[in-house]
Each structure stands twice: as C-alpha cells, then as structure tokens.
C-alpha cells in the first residue's frame, strides 16, 4: 500500500474510471468537467551516491539511474459526462525522471550527459513538463453494443498471456478502439479491440520499423457462462507490423506493404466449479510468430530501421526471436477450498510455457501468471552490483547489493519491463520455457495464517546448441539478453546456448497476531531454492580435442577444435576460447574448458525472514524485520565465467537485511517510508585449474578493486573476476508523500 507504483498505477486508472459517472444533477446542468489528481513526492537516499535519476533501476541508455534525490510529480485526472451516452476522460502527468528539486524547475546547463537533472531547460526529461498520458471517449449508444472506448486504455481486460497491461512507465499509454457487447442476458459477452502497436518495443529489436502508421494488434475475446458450474471462453490476438515494400517501384497506384513481424495467439479457457470446495480452471494457448529475417529490409540496423537480424549472435536483445516460431502454452489450476472444514485449503497448478511461445502484447509486468513465488528480486539482474557490468559501461544499471526487496512476478514474455523501478517495487521475470507444478497449501485459523509452497520446475528451453546442431553457436534466432548466470538469474534471459536445468522451490511463511494492545503482527518466512543446470551435457560440444591444453601448462594450448555437427563446420570453440598461458609457465589464466562438468551450475539458496509490525497510533503503522540470505553458488566456475559479464557469481554469499517500514495517513495524504540496512560478505570460489594473477593499476581503476588483489581475467578480456573476499554495507531509504485532491 505504501510502496509501489504498480498499485499507484492501478489506483490512477481506477480513479479515472470512477470519476466518470456524473451525478444526475450534472446531467441536468449539461456537460461539466471534473478535475481530480494526485501529487507525489519521493525522496531516495542511499550510500551508493548515485544520482542519475529518481529511479533506482533502469537499463535504458541515457535514462540514468539513481538512489539519491528528491522530486515531485503531478497527475491531473479529468472527466466529463457530455451526455448520458458520451463520457470523456483524460490524464495528464508530469514525470520526475530527472526532475530533482535541486534542478530548480528544469533550469541549468545544457548537459551532455543528462544525468542528475543536468539536461537543460529544453530537455523533456528535466523540464518538469506535463504531458498527455491518456485520453479516451467512451460511448454507450444503447443499441448494437454495450460500449465503445476510443483512445487510451490499459487493455487489462484481456489476458496477461495474450494481451496484458501494456505498460511503459504508465499503464494507459496504449491507444486503440475497444468495443464491448453482450447477449443472452449477458451470459455471453465479447470484447474486440484494435490497439496501436507500440513502436517503442513491440517488434524485433524493440521496434516496429520505419513505417508504423498501420501497425496494430487486433484482439477478440468472448466468454460464455453456461451455468454456475461451467464457463468457457476464447481469445485471439493478431499483431501486424508492416513496412513499405522494397519491390514496389510503381508509386502511381500507391505503395504496397510487406510484413516485418506478425504474431497470432489463440487461447481457449474453461472453468469448472463443483460446489464451493472444488475449482478447476484451464487455459490453452497457441502462438505463431514470424519476424522477417531474410534480409528483405537490408543487412544492417544502422542503415535501415526496418531491418530484422537473421541471428542474435551470442547475446542479442529483442522482445521476440527472429524467424518463424509456433508453440503451445497451457496451465491448469485446481483449488480445494477447505475440504475438511478445518481451515486448510490447497491450490495446485500445472503449467508449461513453450520455448517458442511468443506474445508481443503479453503483460510485461504488473501481472503474475504463475502460482509459484518464483525466485526473489534480491540477487536478480545479475546482482548484486552491476557497476562493473561491461555491457553498460558508462551507463550502469544499478539496483545495488540489496536488489529488489520482494519476490518476483512471472510474466509470459521475454519482453519483460523492470525499468524505472525502485528497490521496494516488485520485479518481473520471464517464464518463457518454464514447465512444472506448484503445490500451495494454505492454513488459516483465527489469528494464525500459514502458507507453504513446493514447486518443481524444469524447462522447455533445456536444449543443446540452442536446440539446433546445424547452426553455429553464435548464429541463433534466440536473443540471449545477458544470458543466465548469477545467484537468481537475469529477469529476461529465457534462452541459453546450453541448458539442462531444473529448479525446486520450497516456501513456508506464517503470520500471527499476538493479542497485545492493538495486536502485534508477527510474521516470518523461510524459502529454499535448489537449482542445478548441467548446461553443456554432451562431450561433442566441448570446444577442443582431448588433451588440447597440457595439464602442466608446459606449452600453450594447441587450439585443436572439436566440431559438434556431422559436417565438421560448427564448434563451441568460437565461444569458449582457450586461456592464455601465464608468461612464467606456471599455469593458465583460467581453467581450460575440457570437461562437460566445467560449466555446471549448482545453487543452494536460502532466506530466513522474521519481523513484527504494530499500529502505533490510529494513523501510523510500522514494522521492523530482519532477513538473512545465504546463497552457495557454483556457476560454471572459470569454464563458463558467466560470459564475462557478471561481477559476483560463484562462491558463498551471506547477506543480511534489516528493514524498517512505516505508513502514516492523514485525510487525503499518505506518507510511506522504507529504510534498509544491508550488510554481508561474498567469498568467491571459482574452483581450480588456473593460476590467479594480481590486478594492475588499469584493472584496479576499471573494476574498482585494489591494486595487487588476486583475480583473473575473464574469457572475453573485458571482465575481471576478483578472488578477494568482499564485504559490503549498503544503506538505502525511500520516503514518499502522496496527496489526493
């Protein structure tokens, strides 16, 4: 309640919706404009001293990052009922991306980095401008259809697997036409929409090409309630991104179009409700996606904005794979509601999300499509400290040692959006490729609530050489997006070149209200994750022939390549190159990849939480909690080296989090505070098979390690894995004030 913009977004949209109906007297008086709004002031404080923006995390180049600063934003909600059949609503909103109090209303030098509000008055990110965010007219003609909404919407009335809340900072930035109707006393209902395809991200390479005027997603949904026991429905979505055809040279008869990206998703859903104790719900989805990858639109994105890559290389970035893909997804939920009448209920969910399931309009965050808690945000992407993360050198994506506070939300797309979040907000992670089962017993008796979870997850993305032996290891249709390493993974890396992974998640949490005074909330949680990934599991994929690197390092490695395809063309040696031999001949800079176990991953992750909360006064609630995180990770050791991108990986992580939360409400004004003190250690353990070296001045400066500290360079040479124990202390605080008017 006191902490996230997710809820803020929901509330804002709900506010627009609820402002719509006018009082009868208004109707009699004619059109009348109602104006409401909120103002939101946020204060971030952290000892990382980042002041890029008033958000704790973003990966968008040029948008910055920050854990310090104060800023204010304004949101105005407008609504008017023009007649009984026509309503108008709008929302205009300022943003405080770079709008610190200290930038004096956006004044300042014309900065070339636009960090910390140093953008100048005319840069939209710091000028405190106010912008139209959502504008819509809703018609209820009284015949043919129930209603038609023309304009902005969050389109959350569909399905997060197909068309979910389409968020990019705000929830109703998407625009389109929505028509809703019903029949048979509304037992049958249907919704149809045409949604303008967001050119910002809804296509290969996070764009919809150059010509975008007719790019749209078309959706149709219908539901039928047969009786109290049975209901069913269907949903179909088709997204169409077209460009001007390069082969149409006759302009006299107009210009032809050629498809750049197409995506169709069909869904069938049904629910059985047998009395009050048993609920069974099932959904089946099938997707088709085709991203034009024949070089029709050129061979380089630098020369042609419509270009679609034929391959994403080792680590490409795109919300959809290249080429043509079809796959299925299904989910079945069963709920047994207190069958023994003792307060014990059981939820069970079986699910399988296809490796090639593509839904460009699926929810990117704000939804949680699986029952499992999934992983936590505390060590995510790729954590804990990304300042040295090579890809974003100069524009580091920082969330800090503490990561995101909460457990993650699962979304059925690799188009995950965690941009512009603070540490106290939920983090979304992709579940593309996940399959498994979750058991979730819930016991409630008086002041006591206990809930548990056991999930077994394996993966449709368990494959070798991206699932295709006939392509080079750096020639893949799948975007890796930072690939998968670190304690609890990157949130958007569904695809790896090699994977043989399974995950067990066990959770037990409890809450009890001690009957003292106003009642003391005592809560706690224990969570355990065991995850193993053999990654490369067949010797034929090893990069080099047996004995290629002499065990005594007496000579350099021979680089005799091993090929995994029958034609002898493709080898993992183009990815897993051999190490250099140290000048003194004492060993190798990192361990040669000469055994299929060298890249194995094994994680034991535990967290223990205990806390208490109390309503101190009628208006003030506060809680204090302590959480200990223990992660023992072996992550490919030096053979895998996390592809050289991640700073703290293999070894023992011991993290402690002390959190103080408070919430204070006066009529119309809400104050929230969350302060965290995080401390702990990391003991690296990259195994053996190599000889550590010492950081020189260049490495020390670039990687923030002491001169002379032990470590080793990573395979691609721009990373450095320190072997020194790490001790970290991080404080961070977020406070806000939100006033409605």
């Amino acid at each position, binding site marked *: *309640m006191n902490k996230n913009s997710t809820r803020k977004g929901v509330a804002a949209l709900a506010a627009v919706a609820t402002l719509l109906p006018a009082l009868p007297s208004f109707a009699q008086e004619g059109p009348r404009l109602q104006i409401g709004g909120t103002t939101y002031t946020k204060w971030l404080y952290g000892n990382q001293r980042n002041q890029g923006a008033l958000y704790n995390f973003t990966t968008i180049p040029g948008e910055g990052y920050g854990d310090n600063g104060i800023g204010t934003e304004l949101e105005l909600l407008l609504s008017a009922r023009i007649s009984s059949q026509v309503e108008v609503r709008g929302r205009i909103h300022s943003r405080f991306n770079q709008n610190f109090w200290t930038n004096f209303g956006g004044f300042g030098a014309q900065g070339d980095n636009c960090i910390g509000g140093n953008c100048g008055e005319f840069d939209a990110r710091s000028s405190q401008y106010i912008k139209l965010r959502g504008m819509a007219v809703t018609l209820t003609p009284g015949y043919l259809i129930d209603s038609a909404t023309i304009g902005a919407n969050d389109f959350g009335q569909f399905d997060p697997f197909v068309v979910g809340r389409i968020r990019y900072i705000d929830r109703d930035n998407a625009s389109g036409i929505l028509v809703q109707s019903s029949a048979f006393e509304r037992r049958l209902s249907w919704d149809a929409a045409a949604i303008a395809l967001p050119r910002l991200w809804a296509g290969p390479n996070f764009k919809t090409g150059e010509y975008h005027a007719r790019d749209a997603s078309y959706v149709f949904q219908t539901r039928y309630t047969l009786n109290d026991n049975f209901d069913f429905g269907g949903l179909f979505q088709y997204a169409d991104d077209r460009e001007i055809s390069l082969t149409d040279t006759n302009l006299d008869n107009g210009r032809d179009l050629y498809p750049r990206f197409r995506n169709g998703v069909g869904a069938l859903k049904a629910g059985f409700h047998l009395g009050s104790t048993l609920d069974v719900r099932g959904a089946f989805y099938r997707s088709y996606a085709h991203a034009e990858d024949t070089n029709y639109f050129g061979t380089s994105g630098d020369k042609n904005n419509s270009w679609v890559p034929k391959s994403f290389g080792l680590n490409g970035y795109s919300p959809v794979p290249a080429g043509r893909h079809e796959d299925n997804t299904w989910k079945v939920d069963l709920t047994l509601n207190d069958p023994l009448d003792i307060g014990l209920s059981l939820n069970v969910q079986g699910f399988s999300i296809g490796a090639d399931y593509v839904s460009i309009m699926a929810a990117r965050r704000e939804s949680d499509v699986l029952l499992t808690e999934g992983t936590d945000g505390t060590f995510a992407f790729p954590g804990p400290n990304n300042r040295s993360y090579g890809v974003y050198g100069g524009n580091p994506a920082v969330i800090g040692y503490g990561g995101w506070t909460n457990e993650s939300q699962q979304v059925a797309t690799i188009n995950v959006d965690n941009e512009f979040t603070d540490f106290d907000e939920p983090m979304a992670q992709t579940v593309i490729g996940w399959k498994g089962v979750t058991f979730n017993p819930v016991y409630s008796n008086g002041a006591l609530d206990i809930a548990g979870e056991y999930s077994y997850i394996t993966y449709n993305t368990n494959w070798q050489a991206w699932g295709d032996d006939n392509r080079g290891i750096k020639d893949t249709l799948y975007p890796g997006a930072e690939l998968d390493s670190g304690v609890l993974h990157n949130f958007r890396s569904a695809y790896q070149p090699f994977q043989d992974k399974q995950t067990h998640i066990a959770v037990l949490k409890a809450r009890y209200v001690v009957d003292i005074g106003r009642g003391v909330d005592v809560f706690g949680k224990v969570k355990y994750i065991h995850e193993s990934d053999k990654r490369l599991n067949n010797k034929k994929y090893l990069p080099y022939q047996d004995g290629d690197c002499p065990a005594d390092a007496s000579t350099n490695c021979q680089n005799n390549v091993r090929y995994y395809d029958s034609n002898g063309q493709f080898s993992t040696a183009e990815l897993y190159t051999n190490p250099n031999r140290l000048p003194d001949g004492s060993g190798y800079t990192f361990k040669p990849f000469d055994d299929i176990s060298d890249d194995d991953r094994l994680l034991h992750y535990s967290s223990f939480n205990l806390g208490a909360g109390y309503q101190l006064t009628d208006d003030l609630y506060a809680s204090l909690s302590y959480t200990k995180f223990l992660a023992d990770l072996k992550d490919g050791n030096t053979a895998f080296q996390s592809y050289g991108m991640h700073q703290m990986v293999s070894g023992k992580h011991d993290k402690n989090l002390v959190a103080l939360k408070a919430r204070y409400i006066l009529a119309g004004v809400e104050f929230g505070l969350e302060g965290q003190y995080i401390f702990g250690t990391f003991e690296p353990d990259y195994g053996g098979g190599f000889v550590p070296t010492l950081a020189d001045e260049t490495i020390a400066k670039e990687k923030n390690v002491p001169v002379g500290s032990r470590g080793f360079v990573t395979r691609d040479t721009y990373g450095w894995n320190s072997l020194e124990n790490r001790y970290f202390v991080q404080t961070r605080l977020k406070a806000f004030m939100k006033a409605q008017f």
Partner: protein
Amino acid sequence: MKTSRLACFTLTAALLGAPALAADKVSFKDPTGDDNGPGTYKYPTDPVYKRGSFDLTDFSLAKKGDKLDVSLGFNTTLEDPWKTGSGFSVQMAFIFIDTDGKEGSGSTESLPGLNVKFAPEFAWDKVIVISPQGASRVKAEVGSKAGAVKDNVLVPDRVKGSGRKITATVNAPGLQGEPSQWRYQVLIQSNEGFPAGNDLMTRKVNEYEGQHRFGGGNDGECDPHVVDMLAGAGKGDASEVKAQHEALAFECGEEGVVKKQATLTMVGGEAAPAEKK
C-alpha cells in the same frame, strides 16, 4: 481429597461453560450465484474481479468481551492483486447492525456510495466497514464523508483475507446486548481506492460494465450499489435469491433521478424479537 474433587468439578464445569460465556455468536448463510444485486448486475471486466469475488456465502459475528470477531465467506479464493497487504484487494463489506430493535432508533440512511436505505423498523445503530485498505484510510474517509454518523461506524483494528474468508476484529467497547439479540445486514461492494465524489470507497454500478465499473444498473445514483447481501432468513436457501432481488429493486427516472430507492430489512439473530428476525 474432597477438596480436590470439588476443584476438579469446578474446573471441568468452568471449561465446559467457557465457550458459551466467552462468545455469543451468530452465523448466517447466503446462497451462491446471487452476486448480481437486484438480478441484473455484472462484474467489471478487468480480470482482477474474479468469478464469485463478490458472492457472499456466509457471515458470522462473535462477541468476545469488548471485541467483535467477524467472518465473511466468499465464493472464490481471495487474492491481493493490488498488494494491499490484507490478503485481498477487490472486496469491501458493510455490516449494518440494529442492536436495540427499536423502530425509529438509529439511522435509516446507509453510508454514502451504497444508494440504499433501511426500513424504519430496521434502522441501524452500528455499521462495521470491512476494507482491504488500512484502518487509518478508512477512518479518514469516514470522518470526511460520513461525519454525522462517524461515531456509529466501527473500523476493525485487524482485517485479513485468507482462502475464501475475510476475518476482522473490531474493538467495540460499550456495545450493548449480545449478538444473538441483534439484527444484521451485510452489503457486499468492491473496494475503490479513488472513490468518486462523496462515495465511501465504493465502486460505481453503471448501465454497462466497464473495466473497473459494475454494469447492469444506471449511470445515475438511483440504483443500489450493492452486489450481494443477506436476505430472507439468512439460511442460504434458494428463495433468498429472489428476496434479495426484490429488496434491491429500484426505479429510476430520467437522467438517473430516484423514483424508487431500494429499501432493506435485516436478518435477526436467534434471540432477536420474533417479528423482526
């Protein structure tokens, strides 16, 4: 020895009698499938409003000293999609209580946003507001929007949703009588974070359902903004569906002007006056 026997007898008697002394409790049931107000209401179209979210199945209230323990059952597993921290997000309930059974004693007007009234013989004396939002927010809203009756509005110290139950503990010192002697009406609505106008955190019912609006009513304020309620004898009998529809029947004039407002009765506890049960 004799003393010991006497002590054992006394202890046994005390333990056996304890529940009866500790808690005077009433329980009612409500039929499923009647979460349609006067028979025409439809849920909002956003997926957070799950089937059965506003379908009341049972209600119980127990008095323990100065505290009232309330339990509400719903025909769905509760969820907290808006992260209120209460274990539920979309539900909201108003429990009107007529403690004295005296005609003309109490209020016949309901709370703002519900658009119903009570028959004079069922004028309410206290109302418990169950909301997933914090007690502070609810109290603030009550103070600003229902100030005239705020002393009779009870806001629970604790509210939680778990499984299919919402439970709440209300501190109500000085409340006269026992639950079995009182009469009740439970009105089910939806929690609205940004209520319109003077509404007490209730969601609108319009002619056509929208993403966050109920449908099947009227765009004016002549329709009851109640999705489910207790009716008849409160036993969950199928006939209570019809009773509910009749109780919530309304008529609107042009532009949503009230012609006939829904007028509600209550369901009595075991010891309530027979004619008013």
